[in-house]
Structure formats: C-alpha cells, structure tokens
C-alpha cells in the first residue's frame, strides 16, 4: 500500500527522531584490533555450537572455531590470527552468560587471502546454501537466524521474490546505508545469489526515502540485472520488519505465526547479502561486520568494520570516546537493542550498532497505570492490543495474553514509544512469551 508521501508502506507504526545524520556521512573504516577478542560460540538462533579449539591452540584468520551438526545452526570463525587464551563464560550483550573463545591476536595481522576467479553464475542452489552455511552466515539485522535455513524453504512453498531489507528503519543506524553507498555492486551480486538459491524470479531492494543517495547508487548498480528492482519506501518505523516490508512491497500478508515463505517471499538484510557475496566470491567467512557507533554520547560517530568478538569499549575508543552526560549504552538500534551495564560485551554477527545516549535523549519516567488512550493499539503494526497484553500478564491470565497477541508481537517497541503512561510493553510481552512457552511445553 502507499503512504501519505506516495511511497510504499504499511499501516500503523511511528515516526521516531532518526538522528541518522550523525553517522550517515562517515565512510566505513576499520576498527583497530583489540588486545583480546571474545568470540561467542553461538551467535545465532538455533542449536548451540561446540568449541573446536582449546586453550593454547593457534588459530588463523577465518579458521572455524565452533560448530554444530544440527541443521539450524551456523559455525563461527576466528576473526583474528592468534592464540586461544581460554574458552570461558563471558557476559554477552543480552546480559546472559555465553561461552566465548578468548583469543589473543598476533601483533601482525595478515590480510584475508581472497580466493580468485570464482564464477558466481556457476553455483547451483545447493552450493550456495552450502557456502552460506560454511561461512556462518546469519541474519545481520539483529535476528541472527541462520541464512542457509532461510534459503531452504519448504518444498510446497516456492519462493518467487527475494527482498533485500535496506530500510534501516531503526533510528541512528547507518551501516546498511554505507554498505549501499560503498559496495552497491556486491549487494546486487549477493541478491542474485540469494535469488538463485531459492529459485526466485524477482528481487526487490526496499530502501526508505531518507536514503535517496543509496537509491540512486543501487538503481545504477542494478540496472541491467534481470528481475531486480529498487523500490522506495515511506520513512516509518518499523518499515523493515519482515512482515511489514513484504506487505509494503508486494501487498502480501504473512499470516500470524507463519514465515515469509508462506507468501512466497524471502527477506534478507543488506549486510547478509554482501556477506554472501564475499563468501561465494572470495571464500571469506563471516568474521567481521560493519557496526555504526553513534549517539549524542559519542565524540566522533562513525561506521566501523569490526572483527567479531571485539568488546564495544574498543569501538567507542575508536570513535573518540564518550562525551556528555552518558545515560545509556545500547547494543543494536534504539528501538530493539539491548541496554548495556558496561562497555564490555563483545560484538557479534547480529550487532548493527553501538549507541551511547545521554540523559537528554533518554526519556525515562515511572510507569503509570494504563490510561487506555489506545495509542499503542493505533501504532501496533501487527494490530495487537498491547495494553491488554500487559493487563493479562499482570493478572497472569496467559490464555488472554495470547488472545490479545503476546505471541505475535515482534517487540518493535512502537507501543512503548508512544505510551503516555510509559508502560514497558516489551518487558511484559517477553514475560508472556516465556511463561506461555513454559505452559505449552508442560
């Protein structure tokens, strides 16, 4: 459907302050390698990985250090050449302890040895899936679902359209924007591989209207590519949510509890598509990614190419350190990211940004009784009733929480953003999901 501006969009949603200008003009540059990297063994949704290395082992850049035989899993690779110090439990970005391989990098780091002369056209769908798995690709927008699993949709649900989610609808973040400006051809090549892998006819790159320079670059890069088009979307959050994006671009609605393949679509993130290209063309596993380091609490916001496992303090140092009255550090975007108690957590494959927000930006207030203003209901892109989910959770009426949509909530945060009573709906939704899940397993 079309929004007020004439661009494609969905119903509901919000217009947060975007603050993209802080980092959007900054070219991607490499983040210095820290004295130690902490690479979490499992950085995906699915079965956990086993460590393939032990304390004292030497590891090379891009060497596989953790994997699992389970289908829904993605291996992890060393992001540096160095020596394994230990395999230890470290507090990850969600606050939970995660098993990490701690590596001390060599003083001299090699360049990655790119394989040469690969014919991307020659790969079969089977091979592309194998490459994706081998390289440890996951959704790099934050969800971190293993890519090869997404590339193997059920046989009875053929995928005809691959969508590149280039909305970057989260405020502050600019890493996908930069990738489009700096590597448009690689993104188009990645998209072609994705289309081939699922046998899709159409490829759509959906970009929000606040990145018209990227639209132009991508249109240039995609001209002449069969079946690929670049579409401009309304600037609205969460335009890049899978279901909203599919609806905005194709008019198809993924039913509650179903996957995009239900309506013949596959959605992949910009970073993932570029990473797939790198894996297929150069044989490079996913051991580094672009992270936007920004916020009004960062001295020199920018976009860094960061080795996985780098503690976020190193990123912040690379951007001139903190400034102002720091109130919050967030890993990810400001709408769905995780607030950090310190700057120690390591960057993972799904880390799109590191934000430092000052007290001026962070707006916290005591939770008031719901005043039934219906603003949350109006903005919920899933058409849920967040106010009643909260009420049901407070009363522990799990069946009602489910009826009002707790399980269909994808935690975009629109409801809390707009709630005059400052109710943290997502907190309640997570509680509902955990408890409903526990009840169902019984």
């Amino acid at each position, binding site marked *: 459907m079309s929004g007020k501006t004439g661009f494609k969009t969905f119903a509901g949603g919000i217009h947060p302050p975007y603050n993209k200008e802080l980092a959007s003009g900054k070219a991607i540059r490499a983040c210095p390698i820290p004295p130690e990297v902490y690479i979490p063994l499992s950085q995906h949704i699915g079965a956990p990985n086993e460590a393939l290395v032990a304390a004292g082992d030497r590891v090379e850049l891009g060497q596989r250090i953790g994997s699992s035989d389970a289908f829904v899993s993605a291996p992890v690779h060393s992001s540096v050449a160095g020596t394994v110090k230990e395999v230890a439990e470290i507090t990850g970005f969600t606050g939970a302890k995660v098993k990490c391989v701690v590596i001390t990098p060599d003083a001299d780091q090699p360049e990655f040895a790119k394989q040469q002369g690969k014919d991307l056209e020659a790969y079969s769908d089977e091979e592309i899936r194998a490459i994706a798995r081998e390289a440890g690709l996951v959704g790099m927008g934050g969800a971190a679902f293993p890519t090869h699993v997404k590339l193997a949709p059920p046989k009875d649900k053929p995928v005809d359209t691959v969508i590149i989610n280039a909305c970057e609808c989260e405020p502050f973040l600019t890493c996908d924007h930069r990738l489009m400006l700096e590597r448009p051809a690689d993104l188009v090549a990645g998209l072609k591989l994705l289309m081939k892998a699922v046998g899709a006819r159409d490829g759509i790159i959906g970009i929000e209207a606040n990145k018209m320079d990227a639209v132009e670059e991508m249109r240039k890069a995609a001209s002449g590519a069969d079946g690929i088009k670049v579409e401009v979307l309304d600037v609205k959050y969460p335009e890049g949510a899978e279901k909203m994006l599919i*609806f905005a671009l194709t008019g198809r609605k993924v039913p509650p509890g179903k996957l995009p393949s239900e309506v013949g679509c596959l959605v992949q993130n910009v970073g993932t598509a570029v990473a797939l290209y790198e894996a297929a063309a150069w044989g490079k596993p996913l051991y580094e990614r672009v992270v936007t380091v920004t916020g009004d609490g960062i001295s020199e916001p920018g976009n860094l190419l960061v080795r996985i496992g780098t503690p976020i303090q190193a990123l912040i140092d690379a951007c001139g350190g903190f400034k102002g009255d720091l*109130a919050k550090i967030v890993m990810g975007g400001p709408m769905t990211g995780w607030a950090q108690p310190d700057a120690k957590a390591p960057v993972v494959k799904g880390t799109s940004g590191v934000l430092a927000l000052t007290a001026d930006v962070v707006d916290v207030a005591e939770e008031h009784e719901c005043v039934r*203003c219906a603003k949350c209901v109006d903005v919920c892109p899933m058409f849920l*009733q967040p106010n009643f989910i909260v009420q049901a959770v407070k009363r522990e009426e799990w069946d009602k929480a489910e009826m009002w949509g707790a399980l269909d909530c994808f935690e975009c945060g629109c409801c809390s953003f707009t709630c005059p009573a400052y109710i943290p709906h997502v907190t309640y939704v997570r509680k509902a999901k955990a408890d409903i899940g526990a009840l169902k397993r019984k």
Partner: protein
Amino acid sequence: MAGELLTNVSPHLHKKDETIARAMKDVLIALAPAAIWALVVFGFNVVLILAVSCIAAAIAEVVMRKIMGRKITLKDYSAMVTAVLFAFLLPPTTPLWVVAIGSFIAIAVFKELFGGLGKNVVNPAITARLLLWITPLSVYTTKFVRPFYWKDSGFFTPIATSFSKGVTTFQTLAGNSVDVVAAATPMSLLKSGRWGVDVITGPTPIGATWTNSAGRPTLGSLFLGLKSGCIGEVSVLLLLLGGLYLIWRGTIDWRIPTGIIGSFLLLNLIFWNQPLYNLFAGGLFLGAFFMATDWVTSPVTRRGKWIYAVGIGLTVFLIRLLHYRPEGVAIAIFMWNFGTLLIDRYIAQPKFGEVGVGVFNKLPILPEPAPAPAKKEA
C-alpha cells in the same frame, strides 16, 4: 562513565512530549476558548464556578490519595480537566456550594474510589452531573440565564444562591434582582414547542439579532454561541475549534466525534427532526469532542470506537425523540461507558494477516469469577 547506566528493556526512545500531563494540558487549552466565551456571555459567575470546581477537585484528589496511600498526581492535570468539564455541564446560575459538592464527588467517588486515573469505569464529570440531577440538589442546576443578562446587573455581580421553591427570579448579592430567563434553553424550546409554538414567556432575550420572529434562536446564533444553556455548551463553533485542535494534536481520536455527530445528524435527517437545530442546540458537540473521547472510558480499537460512537449518536437521538431530557448527551455517554467494557472485551480486532476472524473474541459470555493465577515453578 558517570554513574550507573540505565539497563531497561527496549525501546530506548520515547515520543517527545507524549505524556499524560501534556494531553491533559491540551484538553484544557482546547476548552479555553469556550470557557472565555462563556465568561463573556454569562458574566463573572462563570469564573467563580470554574475556580470552585477546580479547587474542590484538587482537594478531593489530595484527600483521597492520601487516605488510600497513593502518590499525589495533581501534576498530571487530569483532576483539573474533570473539574472544568464538570463545570461546563452546569448552568451559570449554579450555587457555588453545589459546584463544590459535585466536583468533589466527581473526583473522590467516580475517579479515585475506582482506583484513580485509568481505572475508572465511567466519566467522572458526567456521572457527577447525572448524580446531581437525580438528587434534590437538582433544583439548583436547572435555571438558565439569557445571554448578556449581566448588562443590567453588572458583569461582576455574582448571582445569589438563595433559591426558594418555584421561584425563578435570581438575586444578585447586592440585593437587586437579576432578571433571569427561566429555563428557556434552545433545547427546551425544541422539546416543548418543536417549531410551532412560542414558549418563551419571560422577557425577550436581548437584541433581535439572535432570535427569529417567533423568539427562537436562529441557527447562526446557536452555532456562534448566543444562546442560554450550560456554561460549556454555548458556542458550537469554539467547541468545534477546540475539538479539531485535539484531533490535530493526536490527543483524541477523530472517529469518536465523527461517529457521534455523523450518526446523529444522519438519523435526524432521515426522520427529518430539525436536523441542524438539533445538532447545535444542546450539548452534543461538548459531549462528542470532550466527554465521549475520554481515553479511559472509550474503547481502544478502531472498530470498537465506531460502534461506541454510533451507539452514542443513536442513543442521543432516541432520547431526544422519545423522551426529552436536557441531559440526553450525558446519559448516552454514561450508558456507553458501560458499553465500552463489553466492546473492549468482546469485539475482536483481527491481527495483521489474520483472516476468518469473526466479529467477536472467543471469550466466555460471563467474565470468569476471579483470575486464577497460573501455577509457576519455583
């Protein structure tokens, strides 16, 4: 790093200025033009009534919250909104002590006893007004003055509060009598006379500009606000402006006033029941924009809002058609405040991509007795 970092769950942004206090301030701003106009038309008494209503509401809120051990929330202005709306529902002759009692009850009983803002089931201002109406105090709330009556007695001359049964002439505090028109509001004209009979028996209202030859207000004067009536329902134009401001600010949902006014107008058109006169004469605009849109007591879904709004329009129409009550709008909104409970519970809102959902939620007809807390592992 300076001090403790915040680690609450996402989202980490909040819409600027989206607070309860901001919304309540918006309502007060939206009501201001109508209040000022009432002051011009009905004299200084209006200020006294508004002031007393606000003070009584504030006292009620503080006292009740102290007793119930809750935090004082005067700063959110919600008590003030209730107080002003309550005052708006009173005739400008209402004795101040009656105002005080009513306003106190509105907050103490219909808001705080239910658990405070957000938990109340019925609109406090409306309910308090209806309560006055069914008690003996109602005698004090049925006398109206003609516009600009103060030209004779003086702008600052308060109206005396001494009522004796059946007497409808008012005394100013200074002792001279204010010539006050007894209860000839446009609504009562409509009821008793329709268009046929001239029912004004008192002195002719000022000027010939606002009445036609039969002594009834013209549509223009109703719309602009040259009529007798309750403090807040005088100028349709100013209420409309205030309402549009609230819609523009996103404080109220356009569906509710649209549904109420639209359905009411449509029904009056179909049954040709003086559509425009009916629309402008009573408290419909005040109710539609400021009372029925009360967040707490209106449904939350879009579908629910339409049902609620059309329900109110229909109810007001029936009350006016079948059984004239000056409080028709208030009664209708009060009734549909209960309708809200049912609508929110039973009317389904299909989720994104959900098909084949009926109109109703799959819930037992009767609310289950007490929510049984689910068993939890230790």
